């Protein structure tokens, strides 16, 4: 009992079954990320002006990751073309490059981008307590944000002296040993622009640290976790899910490069089709990143 058109295409549709199957799956993935992006749109539209940040992500690193993913899209298709020409060695080479690029993408994200967020501290100040922290918020006065027609800054970020007091319910205040330039020089107009690379924090001398009373802070203060604001919630959710898809693709490619390549000897046509079909999935992963990158890093 053979299922027809598993490998050879059906004449009237011009498709073999797996190709139609993967395109249907990709259609559902488009709707899935469509739902996630609609989350992004409504979080952004619904955020208070001072709660949707810009310039928190490292643009060169993000651009590098974009290049890596585009390169892997090219190499996967080169590996498929090599298979069509029955050049197994070239297939192996291009396929190895593909999953290596995928791993590199994940490595950059998981070893630098995400940890950089987790090790950074941020806190939103309640509107009524903002005056206490005016030195680092820069809202009042003739050259303050309000005078310049900008929404007030209500966010202080940096590095706490000890992380323990952030989560300790008995600790009443948090001492910041380093703060970001936006808070160090809050009235500088330079700070209103998004920057290519998040700038270094400024270390504060002993005795001149910033003391934040927990009662003045909106819930969610702490590391740059999803609970800090909706931007981070969107960022981690979308890049996390995208990353899971990258991982899935990498695993599939490693399988086809390694043990799965046995099929080439017995049925090269079917094997070639499998590479084409998984390549289509990989291109969708690249497509999604093409939207994620500007939305989170640039705009």
């Amino acid at each position: 009992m053979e299922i027809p058109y598993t490998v050879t295409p059906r004449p009237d549709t011009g498709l073999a079954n797996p190709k139609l199957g993967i395109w249907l799956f990709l259609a559902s993935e488009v709707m899935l990320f469509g739902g996630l992006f609609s989350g992004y749109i409504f979080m952004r539209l619904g955020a208070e002006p001072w709660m949707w940040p810009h310039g928190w992500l490292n643009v060169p690193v993000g651009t590098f990751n974009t290049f890596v993913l585009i390169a892997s899209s090219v190499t996967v298709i080169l590996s498929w073309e090599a298979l069509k020409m029955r050049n197994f060695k070239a297939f192996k080479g291009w396929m190895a490059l593909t999953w290596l690029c995928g791993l590199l993408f994940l490595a950059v994200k998981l070893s630098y981008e995400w940890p950089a967020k987790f090790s950074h501290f941020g806190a939103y100040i309640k509107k009524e307590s903002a005056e206490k922290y005016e030195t680092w918020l820069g809202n009042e006065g003739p050259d303050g944000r309000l005078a310049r027609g900008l929404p007030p800054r209500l966010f202080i970020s940096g590095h706490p002296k000890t992380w323990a007091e952030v989560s300790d319910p008995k600790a009443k205040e948090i001492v910041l040993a380093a703060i970001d330039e936006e808070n160090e020089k809050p009235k500088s107009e330079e700070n209103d622009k998004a920057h290519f690379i998040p700038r270094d924090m400024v270390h504060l001398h002993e005795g001149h640290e910033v003391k934040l009373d927990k009662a003045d802070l909106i819930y969610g203060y702490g590391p740059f976790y999803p609970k800090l604001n909706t931007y981070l919630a969107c960022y981690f959710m979308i890049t996390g899910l995208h990353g899971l898809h990258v991982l899935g693709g990498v695993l599939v490619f490693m399988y086809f490069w390694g043990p799965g390549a046995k099929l080439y000897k017995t049925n090269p046509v079917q094997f070639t089709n499998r590479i084409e079909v998984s390549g289509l999935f990989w291109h969708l992963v690249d497509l999604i990143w093409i939207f994620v990158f500007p939305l989170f890093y640039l705009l």
Partner: protein
Amino acid sequence: MTHAAELHAQPEHGAHGHHDHSHDHHDPGFWRKWVFSTDHKMIGIQYTVTGLAFLMFGFGLMMVMRWSIANGAAPFPNWCGPFLHSIFGDAVFEKAFDPNTKAFVGWSLSTQGYNVFGAMHGTIMVFFGIVPIAFAGFANFVLPLQIGTVDMAFPRINMASFWSFFISCVIMVLSFFVDGSAAKSGWTNYPPLAGVADTGPAFHPVMNGGTLWLIGMVFNITASLLGSINFIATVVQLRAPGMTWGRLPFFVWAQFITAYLLLLAFPPLESAAIMNLFDRAFGSSFFMPTGLVVNGMNFDGQPLQFSGGGSPILWQHLFWFLAHPEVYVLILPGIGMVTEIIACNCRKPIWGYKAMVGAIFALAFLSFIVWAHHMYMTGMGPKVSAFFQTTTIIISVPSVILLTALLLSLWGGSIRFNTPMCFATAFLPMFGIGGLTGIPLAFNAVDLYMHDTYYIIAHFHYIVAPGTIFAIFAGVYHWFPKATGRMMNETLGKLHFWGSLVAINCLFMPMFLQGMAGVHRRWWDGGASAYATTVQPVLYWNQKISVAAWALGAVQLLFIVNFCWSIIRGKKVTSDNPWHATTLEWDTPTPPPHGNFIKEITVYRGPYEYSVPGADKDYTPQSEPPSGASAPVLGHVAVPAHA
């Protein structure tokens, strides 16, 4: 088709393992045959049996709720209270005390317990009952047979789809037994409640009802998506030679469109479920608005521990974007089954086949742009409201076309009122009532009054209960002989039919009256303690409706007994085509073997060639060669075609 590639042994493909394909009749062993099967018929049966079990479970939850609606906090009678308490525990059942003597008098459903049962009744009936049976179960079994092919396009994905569904079943059942019991925020799971319920120091971060509901839904949605891909690819690619799109049985069209609805509509709900999971697990604020204060549930009137900035309405948009097409997913397979049964038992073709196919295309397309008619009360302005009112009214047209075509199909028919036909015929007016009572709801001015009342409950239950579930019963009685080789008992079937028809109308018809009088949904005591003066005149129906519900439950025992008994001792069929039907699934041995057909299938004509003038019998099977050809037609009680 070329066989060059297919002659190679493919170790990864199918359940055959390393066997050569010329030996098709080897025994795959117990586990591969009954549990981890890739055969679409076994998977269909697995889905159907699991779904029927959940349908009964969900029905049971409702029967318990109806006691609470009719009798408020009064304890359950006799052994029921202790029995229910022993299963579901203290989160759901609480002790009832005599108000005067303060003595313990029994167990009653707590208010939170009512919420749990209500939310899970809805979830289970929709996602674990109807969709697995009507879509996954029946389509898996019947569809490949009806298009004349050997299996689904992706058998292993088919199996994976069932097991993903099974995992979701386990999670949902498990959720009843964690602290706080199962999800209680409605089957619609609206935030902010859905973000805070079952959270806090008294609850486990993951093993709580609300979070388990979300995780279970993710597995359920995955199963649906994998299944949809399979059905669409199968219908597009694997139709037998001669089976053109215009010759497809309407059942196949209905399932095909249903698969597309699931494929494109489910993912936004999956994305919303992930966002809700983030809110619950990581404290994010996708759906938590700024400044919300919660009383009770350990929150003590404090501002909520979320950063704010989220939008509860966004959940509603994403949820209803799925849930509206979902209601068409609930009805279309039923319409498909009813169409087959009506054609077969009227001995004449379906009236308006092309119109019906066009109607389901229109229905599917429009179903994606009507969803906010579930959200008229969320403060949408006139422009967006007008849009959704318009599209909702337009979508009633294809539904009426479908119903009218089926009604007209009865006209002039030589009708055999066997049990499947009884259910299929009753489907028509029941679906009619359900659909027509929906039309006023398209207008937000009406919905202003009717939203969240018993009118809505009656409206949608008429469509799914005496609608789809009757269609499912019809389908079970109709295809049972093909699946098992035995007939179900006609007497029990007729009793089941009449009992169900009467009970279900007594159950749901009065709800229209209650709804129009203003009785709200989801009131644990049926309204006795709330707004008692305005709705008091209709509250006496509660007791009667509850009795009808329990009677309906009792009648289903006839079906269960019939089903189980007939599998073992039912009257054996005397032919492979006991109903004398034209479609291809009756062209197989009974039950169909692995690979389905024992001859090459070619389709020569449309699916409803009943009572063709000049033919020698009153049905002409699709695969029977035109008269004059000599190909033997196996498995028919038929005179060989001759000039």
